[in-house]
């Protein structure tokens, strides 16, 4: 009904009176409240009659305001939840005010002090409720962050904090006397940083200079624009610049015309600067902070008893400065789990925990660290994810389809497994061999692309970001607004990688200049433009790994610190020009890495051995700590397992999550065969086949004159199958990841043989399906013969007549069709390299396929594994609804835990209590307490079944205690 009412203009007019009317009760009730306060303690009773009227009027008008408000709510478009709050608090205000009025009336009648106090309390509550209602109302009309957006803790960009800090500091100094030259310098740089981030877009010398105004040089600033000077020293109020900044939003002349308005602190800083004479610093350095190129060589502080590691000696000084006391290191149980996950990415087995705890050697932690780091493959497979993120290396992704991208996985894995010195790794990335060239080759899509995304520019950007912690992305389009880097410097660096001369483009428009090859830290040397590309890359590699290039080493030690501690000494870790919270320690770590032959395992080990690493973890997320400007280290952050670590932990606790790899470090002898299925076509194009049952036949001949010594068969079918050899059933399966190994020596014969398969694909949509088979026959003379699934096989989607004998040799399959191959066992898009598809499993292989070796999938993606389309140095760790849905409803985890339950039942089915204990020991490295034992016992006792165990496993792996690294 109200909907139709709002159509009538009178109602609509009335309803819009709400904002007008509401202010009346607000004013009246609040005044009443304050007057009431004045009467406390039996004072000023002469106010009473006035207050009485105020309360009555307030109650009455609030009722009117609420009624017109309700009309407005049904006629307008406002966010529902805020509207609800406003409505409810508004109605509550009305009820409270009417109650207060009645209570006041009652108190007047009774004259009792107690009644008066009840009334006073209610009036107070009314005013409080009114405040809430008013706030929500203002949120509706002004936006929910109208009020809070000006609070300093809600600043979205750090510029504001920086400007306000500087402003406060300078204002303070000014009160004590004239500003020193140092402070004038600071003031000027602060103002120029504001110009850079907010004005350079239109007013820098590489732009069209809107209004004839440039703000990036002293002369230009004082010369002003087409309309005359914009800055008049000592006269802020006469300066056009300030006038424009202070105009209301939407005004034709307001500045900036584009992007966000300046924060008030920034405007005040500019005002102060003009007021102080618009001093222009002639310092040659850039306007943004830059880290020193070379490392300072800080002398480690004196050792103190109990603090042997040099890291701890630096930290001790730091702690003293911040008034922090050393906490006790974590106990053995917490330590072993932490160091296992950090060093090799696996959970410690219960026996390993037990023997570590009972070990009494004083250096057992150091020995554990070193023994873990010496598990080369485990170490490599855990580290691989970090490096893949950093170097944008992936098994799948854009660009591969047209050959516009190349993996470096083989190079990377071997570098990690062999613990290649870091300087050598950098050399090989920048001046690559064939198997490491993918890094600087970038990703190339077919067609035109932005000049700032040429593969040469990608190489420059990625080296800058990944290896030396500098953001070149802004400067590859125009002079950076956030750093001192220029467009020319970005192009100069890109030109190093280019075969041809690079034309400089500013925001996609050619400037007419050609780039000269150069690295922007020219202190490290020149790159002669006449050199060939190979020579240039070699020279660049020399310059990058030069020990004087402290940035390279600071960047990597900072990243490793962040890996282990959750937050870098500098944060974000890609912005190494920012100030570290412990410069001496950062520089010492970098220098120490150089002194130890660039040994990355040494670096990990020395951090892990420190007491700083072994402190109790701090309950802050990486995001919190990363954004905290006044972060103080007091221990490693509590981190969440990575997607890969979580998957591997499931493999350990339940059942192997993966069975095929994208990259195979062990060179498994995977048998040759093709994945075959029905050749469905749509419009003549290959398509996936609809779900259903399909029939396969393959005839082959074994030579007559040799005896069959042994015949071994491997089969894997997506999704289920029954296999017949010469008419008799030889095997079946429902899971392509479970390779069936069959001995069919007895079923084969000399001469003609037949393999027949009935295979089925379920589901509701057409999806990849396939049969993979390899038969290896060994004869008595030692000769061998191999039969495998390939394009010679025949298939039909029509069910053969029962009794037609389609499973045996003598059957007319003339109507059957040829299969289509979907790739072979070693290289295909749908199933990967199924490592179990081998007749001779290698000894060296680990017990299960680690998640880092498989392509990204919806499960890992939901758990935060990035797509690696760009360099990623900061994974998302916050839980999301989509992730929770994957974990609670997803078939993926459910299926893995189902297999895990079967395994646990087989081993401990007859002793449920022991099963629970062992699950806790494996999952959480501790015994269950009595309550847990009881709750879990109630779930699975008396007769454990696989569903109950599956659900117990689920409830445990979902615990924060399982998923967090303490």
């Amino acid at each position, binding site marked *: 009904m109200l909907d139709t009412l709002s159509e009538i203009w009178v109602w609509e007019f009335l309803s819009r009176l709400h904002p007008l009317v509401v202010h009346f009760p607000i004013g009246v009730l609040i005044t009443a409240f304050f007057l009431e306060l004045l009467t406390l303690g039996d004072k000023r009773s002469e106010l009473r009659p006035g207050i009485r009227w105020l309360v009555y009027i307030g109650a009455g008008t609030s009722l009117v305001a609420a009624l017109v408000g309700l009309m407005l709510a049904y006629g307008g478009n406002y966010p529902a939840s805020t509207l609800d709050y406003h409505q409810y608090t508004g109605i509550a205000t009305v009820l409270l005010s009417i109650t207060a009025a009645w209570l006041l009336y009652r108190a007047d009648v009774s004259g009792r002090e107690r009644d008066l106090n009840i009334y006073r309390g209610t009036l107070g509550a009314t005013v409080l409720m009114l405040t809430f209602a008013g706030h929500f109302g203002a949120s509706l009309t002004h936006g929910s962050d109208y009020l809070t957006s000006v609070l300093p803790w809600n600043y979205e960009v750090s510029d504001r904090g920086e400007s306000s800090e500087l402003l406060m500091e300078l204002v303070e100094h000014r009160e004590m006397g004239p500003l020193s030259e140092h402070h004038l310098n600071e003031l000027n740089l602060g103002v120029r940083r504001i110009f850079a981030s907010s004005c350079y877009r239109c007013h820098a010398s590489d732009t069209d200079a809107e209004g004839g105004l440039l703000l990036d040089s002293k002369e230009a600033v004082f010369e002003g624009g087409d309309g005359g000077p914009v800055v008049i020293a000592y006269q802020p109020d006469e300066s056009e610049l300030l006038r424009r900044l202070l105009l209301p939003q939407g005004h034709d002349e307001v500045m900036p015309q584009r992007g966000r308005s300046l924060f008030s602190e920034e405007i005040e800083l500019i005002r102060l600067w003009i007021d102080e004479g618009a001093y222009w610093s002639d310092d040659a350095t850039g306007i943004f902070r830059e880290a020193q190129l070379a490392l300072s060589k800080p002398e480690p502080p004196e050792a103190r008893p109990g603090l042997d590691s040099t890291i701890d000696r630096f930290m001790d000084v730091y702690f003293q400065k911040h008034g922090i006391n050393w906490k006790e290191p974590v106990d053995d149980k917490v330590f072993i789990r932490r160091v296992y996950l950090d060093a090799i990415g696996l959970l410690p087995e219960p026996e390993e925990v037990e023997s570590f705890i009972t070990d009494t050697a004083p250096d057992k932690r150091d020995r554990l660290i070193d023994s873990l780091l010496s598990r080369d493959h485990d170490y490599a497979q855990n580290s691989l994810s970090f490096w893949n993120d950093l170097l944008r290396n992936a098994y799948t992704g854009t660009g591969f389809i047209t050959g516009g991208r190349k993996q470096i996985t083989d190079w990377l894995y071997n570098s990690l497994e062999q613990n290649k010195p870091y300087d050598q790794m950098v050399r090989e990335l920048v001046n690559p061999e064939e198997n490491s060239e993918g890094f600087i080759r970038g990703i190339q*899509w077919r067609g035109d692309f932005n000049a700032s995304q040429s593969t040469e520019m990608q190489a420059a950007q990625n080296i800058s970001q990944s290896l030396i912690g500098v953001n070149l992305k802004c400067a590859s389009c125009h002079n950076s607004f956030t750093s001192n880097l220029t467009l020319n410097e970005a192009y100069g660096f890109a030109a190093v990688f280019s075969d041809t001369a690079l034309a400089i483009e500013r925001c996609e428009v050619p400037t007419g200049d050609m780039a000269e090859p150069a690295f922007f830290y020219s202190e490290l040397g020149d790159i002669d433009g006449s050199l060939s590309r190979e020579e240039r890359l070699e020279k660049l590699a020399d310059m990058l790994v030069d020990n004087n290039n402290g940035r390279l080493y600071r960047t990597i030690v900072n990243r490793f610190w962040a890996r282990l501690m959750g937050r870098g000494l500098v944060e974000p870790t890609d912005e190494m020009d920012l100030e570290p919270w412990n410069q001496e320690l950062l520089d010492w770590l970098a220098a120490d890495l150089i002194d130890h032959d660039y040994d990355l395992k040494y670096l990990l080990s020395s951090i892990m051995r420190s007491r700083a690493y072994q402190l109790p973890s701090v309950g802050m997320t990486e995001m919190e700590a990363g954004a905290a400007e006044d972060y103080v280290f007091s221990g490693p952050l509590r981190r969440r397992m990575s997607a890969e670590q979580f998957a591997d932990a499931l493999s350990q606790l339940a059942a192997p999550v993966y069975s095929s790899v994208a990259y195979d470090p062990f060179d498994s002898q995977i048998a040759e065969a093709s994945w075959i299925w029905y050749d469905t076509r749509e419009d003549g194009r290959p398509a996936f086949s609809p779900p259903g049952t399909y029939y396969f036949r393959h005839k082959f001949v074994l030579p007559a004159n040799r005896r069959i010594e042994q015949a071994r068969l491997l089969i894997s079918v997506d999704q289920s199958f029954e296999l017949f050899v010469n008419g008799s059933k030889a095997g079946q399966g429902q899971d392509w990841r479970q390779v069936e190994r069959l001995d069919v020596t007895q079923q084969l014969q000399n001469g003609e043989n037949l393999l027949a398969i009935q295979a089925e694909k379920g589901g509701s949509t057409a999806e990849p399906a396939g049969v993979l088979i390899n038969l290896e026959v060994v004869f008595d003379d030692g000769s061998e013969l191999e039969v495998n699934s390939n394009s010679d096989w025949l298939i039909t989607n029509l069910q053969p007549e029962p009794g037609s004998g389609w499973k045996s040799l003598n059957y007319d399959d003339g109507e059957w069709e040829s299969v289509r191959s979907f790739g072979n066992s070693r290289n295909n898009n749908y199933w990967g390299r199924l490592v179990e598809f081998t007749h001779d499993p290698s000894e060296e292989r680990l017990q299960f396929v680690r998640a880092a070796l498989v392509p990204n999938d919806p499960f890992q*993606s939901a758990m935060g594994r990035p797509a690696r389309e760009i360099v990623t140095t900061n994974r998302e760790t916050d839980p999301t609804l989509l992730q929770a849905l994957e*974990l609670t409803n997803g078939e993926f985890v459910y299926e893995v835990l189902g297999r895990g339950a079967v395994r646990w039942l087989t081993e401990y089915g007859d002793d449920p209590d022991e099963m629970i204990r062992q699950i806790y020991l494996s999952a959480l490295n501790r015994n269950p307490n009595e309550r847990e034992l009881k709750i879990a016992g109630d779930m699975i006792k008396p007769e454990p079944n696989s569903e109950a165990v599956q659900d117990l496993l689920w409830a445990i792996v979902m615990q924060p205690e399982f998923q967090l690294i303490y």
Partner: protein
Amino acid sequence: MSDSMNRRDFLKKTSAATLAALSATLPASAFLSGCQPKIKSKADTVILLWMAGGMAHTETFDPKTYTPFEKGLESDRVLSTFPSVPTSVDDLFFSEGLESIGSVMDRGTVIRSYRAADLGHILHSRHQYHWHTCYEPPQTVDVPHIGAWIARELGPINPVIPPFISIGQRFDVGESEELKAYHTAGFLGSEYGPFLIPDPSSGLESVRPPVGMSIERFERRHQLYRDLIDQSPAGEYASDYQKESMLRAMEQSYALLKSPDAEAFDLSQEPKESYEAYDTGRFGLGCLLAKRLTEAGARFINVTTEYEPFMGWDTHENGHTRTIRMKKMIDRPIARLIKDLEQSGRLDRTLVVLASEFSRDMVLEGRPGAGVQDQVEVPDVMENLSHYGMHRHFTDGCSILMFGGGIKKGAVYGKTADERPCGTVEKPVVIDEIHQTIYHALGIDSQTNYVIEGRPFYTTPDGDGEAVMELFA
């Protein structure tokens, strides 16, 4: 949205507030400048009907002179392979086979002047990336899909329905990695990423316990989880924030599973008549699911005819025959969707957009004069019916439909030439404008941005996208 609250919470804790000191120097203008007029929204929900693979405008919503097939016909003589048919709007004609959509055109607008970007070489997924993100790939940061921006800016309408839902696309087909590259929330964070439902008829499975798990067992499992958490001594280890946020996510997904609103995902709840009216295959059922989810309170829904190289609208040969099939697939369900939304009163607050990455032409590749390399062999003279159709990729004039959400009814916007090249001749629109038009309808300001790596990244490049105000009533 809860995420942004968390960000604020911790900043509150960590950054030392010096409000008092500052307030002394705050000029009044700072308060006034925050008082920007807000755009009044015209729509709450967006449904994007995606014609994947390049839908020829001259064969659908912008027909030209019809030339029937005959052996020996010269390719460059053919502009349309279908006759035109009238629509419910005077003087507005569509291509034969789109009569149902034609009958609801009095509820919407056809834009005939969309110009796709000239990316130098036709790669469907690149143009699709551009259409869905407003940015040309590659980019130096992970760019969000328009649905993710909307999810972040407006949040869910119904807390148990994910705000960004994508229906109908499988990711194991060709160019799948390129498809994944734009089906993402990018730097906004996966919280705003797409909830993927490749097969609409099994949409319910994505919000139900795993197959084989009864509701009772699901409840028991969840209870066990809660009981064990209460007992875990991890309380002494885990920070409240991390633990709470993990628990919250789990409780949220539990709420969705338990919520009666989850039935919106279940197409079997739909009356038989309605189900059959929509059922032209996965796309039609996708439209039905979109209708149900809109009613339940979804924010952004993408329904695609599905992109698979050389399939669907990607007609490299046999175009005429295949276009007949594609029209059958889309015509009935789309018209029904518009009518159903209208009937339930939701069309006014729902913006329905139909679009494709570019158009097609029989002889031109790319756009006139662009010199784009031909990708399809087209004979000068047709020998058989398979040569008859729009087989090359054309970017200079494409059609877009818009319904509801404050869009004009029964209107035509822009114009293409009636002779080859049938490119845009009046009121060209580009993707930045289309995006900003959609944002505008939702009340999202053109300067909306996210600061990534120290610079603001806008919903449209540089925040320059302008809404086409003429499209609105």
